[in-house]
């Protein structure tokens, strides 16, 4: 994490048992939700950490503590609720309700482990597409209703339904997320926490202590979500609506029936408007009821059409906020001016009836009656003006919608063109890369071929050299054979021991040297030296030490001189002492090794 946006979050790779945190998915008033990996099952999960920022904070040791001692009790109480709720939610196994897998306490707080859902948030989808067609909207809403009904039947309400908390999986199925603010709805006034999403939360969530919240609260939020999907904007916030209804402003919610007219079925639009009734008692009271409206498009019983101006002046609007016991049948959605008008007219009539001058002076009464009719006409005109204003506003919104559509279409075309350009660029890049790779492969192959050729050439040269060496050796052997034959032709003493042949070979070698035939001389010395003749070995050592007719090589000289010295040649000993001074210790050891290993064969 290490994300400055989430200063209270645990760091990335932080481990909670066998869960390794990867990043923050989001943070709300109650806690932080992380994307994590279950290392046991090797799967991604979402983990919600209880961290009510109002009363608690993160400590350096990763634990969560209440900010003050006074807040400790509140924190602990919320923590208990969090755990209890997680346990309850874990019982729900519905494809459209986020699956709670586990809950555990750690770091002095608790963690709710949930299945991580891949896909796209409905808010993001709407941000991208602005509106959804009816069939697509139904595919999102109806499954959510199924899941939500299950939750409601268990005595829970979600209290935070909004596009951000509806996830669309890759297969298009929706799932309702984030029950973090869910609270048991029965008999726990203290459980109510004001967590409202402007535009999606009904008025009772702003002020209520919880007793008048129920399924209708979630229905309002779902209706608002539908409103967002058809209008492209969220409905007016409940607080603003309350001001409009109370007459302090002209902010009145434009009904879905007006905004979506012609694009969505009347039944759907009416169901949405019904869900968005300001007063909770005017809304559908259960998911089943609202589902029927959505599915059948039937108008709910005792529900005034929000777009009609049918409230008579004599019908006073239900006071707001309404107590749960008072359930007016008529809608207060219509222009309240009409209601105000009715009340004013009624008041005028009462006042007129109570005026003392009404009974005495007929002229005055006539005048007052005239004045009253004038006032009534004025009020009627005001109401008509208000209605006209609303129609104008609706027309303006419709026009804005049309303009927005054009802009969206333009943006879509631009996006497509940009996408195509990027695709073409990527294609060109891929082709260029492919070409470069092909060229590299060709050059590599060429280099390999050349290397192979070089290797073959080197091998050929090497073999040629060996062949020449062999030929030279053959020639040398032939010469030696010839010399030996010549030597053999010379009459010899009968004792033909090998060392005895040495002096003759030395003599022949000396003669060959006199004739300038160093090669023959060397060959004869070698033959005698190899036969163990110390003098020949000494002379070979001298030849190599001096580099006479051969490349100078002190190691070779040392070897032959050592062999001669070992055989008792006095001159060789002193000469070897001279040569050894030119050698490195390692070279001496190396040559000594040869001498020791070679002595038997050298004596042959």
């Amino acid at each position, binding site marked *: 994490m290490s994300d400055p946006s989430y200063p209270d979050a645990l760091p990335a790779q932080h481990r909670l048992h066998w869960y390794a945190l990867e990043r923050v998915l989001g943070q709300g008033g109650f806690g932080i939700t992380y994307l994590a990996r279950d290392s046991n099952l090797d799967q991604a999960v979402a983990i919600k950490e209880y961290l009510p920022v109002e009363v608690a904070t993160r400590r350096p040791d990763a634990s969560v503590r209440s900010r003050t001692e006074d807040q400790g009790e509140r924190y602990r109480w919320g923590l208990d609720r969090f755990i209890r709720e997680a346990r309850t939610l874990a019982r729900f196994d519905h494809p459209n309700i986020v699956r709670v897998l586990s809950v555990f306490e750690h770091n002095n707080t608790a963690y709710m482990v949930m299945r991580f859902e891949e896909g796209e948030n409905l808010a993001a989808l709407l941000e991208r597409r602005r509106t959804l067609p009816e069939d697509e909207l139904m595919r999102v809403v109806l499954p959510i209703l199924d899941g939500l009904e299950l939750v409601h039947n268990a005595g829970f309400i979600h209290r935070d339904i909004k596009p951000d908390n509806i996830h669309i999986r890759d297969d298009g199925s929706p799932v309702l997320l984030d029950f973090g603010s869910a609270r048991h709805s029965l008999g726990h006034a203290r459980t109510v926490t004001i967590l409202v999403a402007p535009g999606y939360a009904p008025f009772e969530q702003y002020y209520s202590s919880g007793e008048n919240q129920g399924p209708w609260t979630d229905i309002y939020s779902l209706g608002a979500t539908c409103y967002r999907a058809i209008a492209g904007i969220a409905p007016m916030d409940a607080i603003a609506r309350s001001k409009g209804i109370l007459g302090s402003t002209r902010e009145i919610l434009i009904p879905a029936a007006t905004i979506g007219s012609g694009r969505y079925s009347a039944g759907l639009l009416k169901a949405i408007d019904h869900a968005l009734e300001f007063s909770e008692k005017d809304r559908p009271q259960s998911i089943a009821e609202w589902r029927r409206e959505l599915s059948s498009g039937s108008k709910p019983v005792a529900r005034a059409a929000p777009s009609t101006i049918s409230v008579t002046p004599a019908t006073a609007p239900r006071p707001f906020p309404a107590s749960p016991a008072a359930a007016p049948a008529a809608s207060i959605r219509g222009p309240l001016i009409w209601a105000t008008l009715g009340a004013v007219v009624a008041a005028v009539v009462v006042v007129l009836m109570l005026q003392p001058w009404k009974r005495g002076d007929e002229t005055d009464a006539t005048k007052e009656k005239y004045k009253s009719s004038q006032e009534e006409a004025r009020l009627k005109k005001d109401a008509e003006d208000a209605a006209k204003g609303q129609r104008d506003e609706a027309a303006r919104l419709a026009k804005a919608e049309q303009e927005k559509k054009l802009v969206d279409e333009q943006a879509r075309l631009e996006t497509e063109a940009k996408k195509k350009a990027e695709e073409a660029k990527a294609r060109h890049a891929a082709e260029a890369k492919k070409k470069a790779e092909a060229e590299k492969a060709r050059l590599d192959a060429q280099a390999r071929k050349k290397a192979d050729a070089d290797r073959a050439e*080197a091998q050929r040269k*090497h073999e040629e*050299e*060996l062949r020449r060496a062999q030929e030279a050796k053959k020639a040398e052997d032939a010469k030696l054979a010839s010399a030996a034959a010549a030597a053999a032709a010379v009459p010899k003493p009968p004792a033909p021991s090998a060392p005895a042949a040495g002096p003759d070979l030395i003599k022949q070698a000396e003669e060959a040297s006199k004739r300038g035939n160093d090669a023959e001389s060397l060959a004869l010395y*070698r033959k005698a030296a*190899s036969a163990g003749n110390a003098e020949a070995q000494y002379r070979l050592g001298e030849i*190599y030490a001096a580099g006479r007719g*051969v*490349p100078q*090589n002190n*190691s*070779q000289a040392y*070897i032959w001189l050592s062999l001669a010295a070992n055989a008792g040649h006095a001159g060789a000993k002193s000469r070897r002492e001279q040569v050894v001074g030119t050698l*490195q*210790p*390692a*070279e001496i050891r*190396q*040559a000594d*090794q*040869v001498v020791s*290993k*070679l002595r038997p*064969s*050298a004596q042959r």
Partner: protein
Amino acid sequence: MRVGAARAIRRASLYVLAAVLAQGCASKEGIRCAITDINKEFQQQYERILAEKGNRRFTVSPVDAFAGTRAALFRLGMRLETQDPDLGLLSVAAPAPTPLTQEEWKLVAQADLPMMQQLAARCVGLPAYLLKFEPEGLEIVITATILPAQGGSEISLTARMRQVTPPPSGMPRREYAPPTGVHKALDKLWEQIERELGVKGRPI
């Protein structure tokens, strides 16, 4: 092997002499002392390295081992000086830094130059830091012995630097290759010999 050291030392001598002339404070004895110290240190390290990786035993006949060693040395750019298959002796030579490449030689210089400068500095002071490793003017001579051993052959390698022209200064001329150069060259030689013989050698 690292031949450049000799050359470097020769050059170093010139540098040091230049420094002496410039400063009037370094003596010929100082230079001799520096070169001797460097030789001594390099020799000690050379002996240690040879003890570790100077000999290997192969499960091939001495004849094959001789031919393989010869081929390997040729392939690394060495030329034949003398060979005696009967003795099992083979000597090759090439201009330094062969058998190392110039790139390998640069790495050797980077690794060992500071040590050489520090050694010289004890005798000549700051001018020691003018020393450079330069392989020009030097030859590398490698001597290989290939002897029969139980179950195959035993190959031994030694290397020395040889100056193409003797130094006119009369300074000590026994130089050893820098330790990193010896390491690298031996590794390269054994690798090539093993490739030629087709078997891995076992250090002795």
